[in-house]
C-alpha cells in the first residue's frame, strides 16, 4: 500500500507542477519573444505580467465554446481531449532526479521507471498525430482540413529522423531505461568534461542532438516548421474552428509536447540531472549562488526603480525574498539530494525550451515542399549515416 500512497503523492506533485509550468511557459514565450523584438511583452496583469497566464485561463474557460453546425460533433469534441491527454501522458517516464530517500521512504524522482522508457515516449508521441488530424478533419472546413493533412504528413515524415537520432545514443548506452541512461552519463572526462552523450562515447552524439532538435521542432509543429497552423496562409490551421476550452486544450498539448521533447533531449543528450561540473568543484552551490545573486539584483533594482515603475519598489523585494528562501532550500542537508538534481534537470530542460523560443523569434517559416524535401533528402540520410558511424564505432570499441 505504501507504494500506492507514494505514487499518488508524486503524481499529484508532478501534475500540479506540470500544469503550472504549462501555463507559465506561455508567459515565458511571450516575454522572450517580446524582448527579442524589443517590446515589453505582457505587462499589465500583475507585476511584469506575471498574472497574465491566470487571466488567460479565466478568459478561455469563460468564453463561449462554439460548435460549428457543419462539424462532426463527436470527433470535433474528441480531438482536443485526445491531443491534450496524449501530450500530458508522456511526462510519466521522465526521471527528474536519482533515487532518493525522503522521510524514510526510498523512491525514484519520476513517476514510472519503465524498462521501455524511450519506446513508450515514441509510442505516445506517435499517437499525438490523431488529435491534430481529427481536429482538422472534424471541423469540416477547408483550412483546418489542409492544416490537419499537412500536420499528419509532416509528423509521419519527421518521426523517422527523430527515431534514428534517438537510436544512436541508445547504442552507446545499451539500455532503454531513462533512469539508467542518466546514471550512465555520470562522471567526467579528465576530471571536468561531463560524460554526457553529446561529448562522450566512441562517437560524440552532437550530430544526433542537432538532428533530434530539428526533428522535434517539426514534431511539435513549431517555427520554422509550423505549417499546420501557418496563420498567414491557413488562418489558424487545424484549430481554426476551435474556441474556448477546445482551443486551450490544443494550446496546452503543444506546450506539453515541447516540454516533453526538451526533457527527453535533456535525459538522452545532456545528462539528465548530472551537474555541469563535478561536485568537488562546488557544483552543489551553483543554485545557491544563482538564486542569491538574482535576489541581490532584484533588491538593487527594487530600491532604484524608476518613478514610472513604482510597482517594482514593492514587487521586486517580494520576489527577492522568495528567491532567498528558494536558495536557502539548497542549503538544507535533508533536501539537498532532492533539490540539487532537480535544479540541474530543470535548468537544462528550460534552456532547451529557451532554444525553442529563440528559434521562433529568429527563423522564418519553410514552404511545404521545402519542408518535405528537407526531411527526406537531407535530415533522413544524415540521421542514417550518423547511426551507421555510431554503431560501427561502438562495435569496434566494445570488443
Amino acid at each position, binding site marked *: 500500500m505504501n507504494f500506492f500512497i507514494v505514487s499518488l503523492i508524486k503524481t499529484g506533485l508532478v501534475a500540479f507542477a506540470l500544469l503550472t509550468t504549462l501555463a507559465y511557459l506561455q508567459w515565458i514565450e511571450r516575454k522572450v519573444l517580446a524582448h527579442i523584438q524589443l517590446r515589453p511583452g505582457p505587462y499589465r496583469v500583475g507585476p511584469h505580467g506575471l498574472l497574465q497566464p491566470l487571466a488567460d485561463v479565466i478568459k478561455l474557460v469563460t468564453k463561449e465554446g462554439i460548435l460549428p453546425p457543419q462539424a462532426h460533433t463527436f*470527433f470535433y469534441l474528441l480531438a482536443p481531449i485526445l491531443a491534450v491527454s496524449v501530450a500530458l501522458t508522456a511526462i510519466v517516464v521522465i526521471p527528474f532526479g536519482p533515487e532518493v530517500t525522503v522521510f524514510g521512504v526510498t523512491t525514484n524522482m519520476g513517476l514510472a521507471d519503465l*524498462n*521501455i522508457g524511450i519506446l513508450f515516449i*515514441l*509510442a505516445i508521441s*506517435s499517437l499525438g498525430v490523431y488529435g491534430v488530424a481529427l481536429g482538422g478533419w472534424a471541423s469540416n472546413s477547408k483550412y483546418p482540413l489542409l492544416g490537419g493533412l499537412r500536420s499528419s504528413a509532416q509528423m509521419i515524415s519527421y518521426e523517422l529522423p527523430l527515431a534514428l537520432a534517438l537510436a544512436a545514443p541508445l547504442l552507446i548506452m545499451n539500455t*532503454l531505461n531513462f533512469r539508467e541512461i542518466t546514471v550512465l552519463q555520470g562522471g567526467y572526462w579528465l576530471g571536468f568534461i561531463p560524460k554526457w552523450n553529446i561529448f562522450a562515447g566512441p562517437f560524440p552524439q552532437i550530430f544526433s542532438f542537432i538532428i533530434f532538435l530539428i526533428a522535434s521542432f517539426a514534431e511539435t509543429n513549431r517555427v520554422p516548421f509550423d505549417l499546420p497552423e501557418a496563420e498567414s496562409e491557413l488562418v489558424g490551421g487545424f484549430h481554426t474552428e476551435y474556441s474556448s476550452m477546445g482551443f486551450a486544450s490544443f494550446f496546452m498539448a503543444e506546450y506539453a509536447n515541447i516540454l516533453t521533447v526538451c526533457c527527453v533531449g535533456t535525459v538522452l543528450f545532456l545528462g539528465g540531472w548530472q551537474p555541469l561540473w563535478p561536485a568537488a568543484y562546488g557544483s552543489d552551490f551553483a543554485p545557491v549562488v544563482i538564486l542569491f545573486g538574482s535576489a541581490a539584483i532584484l533588491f538593487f533594482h527594487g530600491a532604484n526603480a524608476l518613478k514610472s515603475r513604482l510597482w517594482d519598489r514593492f514587487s521586486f523585494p517580494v520576489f527577492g525574498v522568495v528567491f532567498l528562501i528558494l536558495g536557502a532550500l539548497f542549503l538544507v542537508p535533508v533536501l539537498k539530494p532532492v533539490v540539487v538534481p532537480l535544479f540541474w534537470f530543470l535548468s537544462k530542460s528550460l534552456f532547451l525550451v529557451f532554444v525553442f523560443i529563440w528559434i521562433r523569434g529568429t527563423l522564418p517559416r519553410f514552404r511545404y515542399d521545402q519542408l518535405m524535401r528537407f526531411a527526406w533528402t537531407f535530415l533522413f540520410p544524415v540521421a542514417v549515416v550518423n547511426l551507421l558511424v555510431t554503431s560501427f564505432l561502438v562495435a569496434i570499441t566494445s570488443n
Partner: protein
Amino acid sequence: MEGLLFLTFATIAVLCALNLVLQTHPISSALSLIGVLGSIAVLYLLLGGEFIAAVQLIVYAGAIMVLFVFVIMLLNTGAEKQPTRKIVVTWISLPLLFTFIALAAMLIAQQVPKTEVVTFGGFSGGTTLSVGRSLFTQYLLPFEVTSILILIAILGAVVLARKEI
C-alpha cells in the same frame, strides 16, 4: 489485479471491435480499431511482452492507422450507403456468428486446462534485449527478407501512386 485488468481491457477490445463492424462511417471504424490496438497492447504487457506492446503502439497505432486515417480524410467519402442486403442474410448470419464464437470458446476451454493461468511477471523473456537477440541470430534470414518485402512495398506504393495509372 490481473483479473480486473484483463476484464477491463478485454471488454474495451470487444466493444471497440463490435463498433468497428457496426459503424457506417470509416473514420469511426478506424478510431475503434485504434481502441482495439491499444487494449491489446495492454494485454501484451500483462503477458510479459513489453517490447511487442511498444511496437504494437508505434507501428500499428502510430504508423499504419495514421495512414488509414490520412486516406479516409483525403478521400472524405462520407458514411457508407445503407446496404441493400436482404434481411434474411442478417437473420442467418448473426446466429451463425454467435454459434461460431460459442463453439470456438468451448473448444478452447476444453483443450486448455484450467490450471494454466497468467500472472503478471510470469514470463520475463519479452524484453527488448531477448527479442533483439533472437531476431538478429535465430531469425536473421526472415528479418532480412522482410526488409526486402518492405522495399518492394515502397516501390509498389510509389508505382501505384503515380499519376498515369
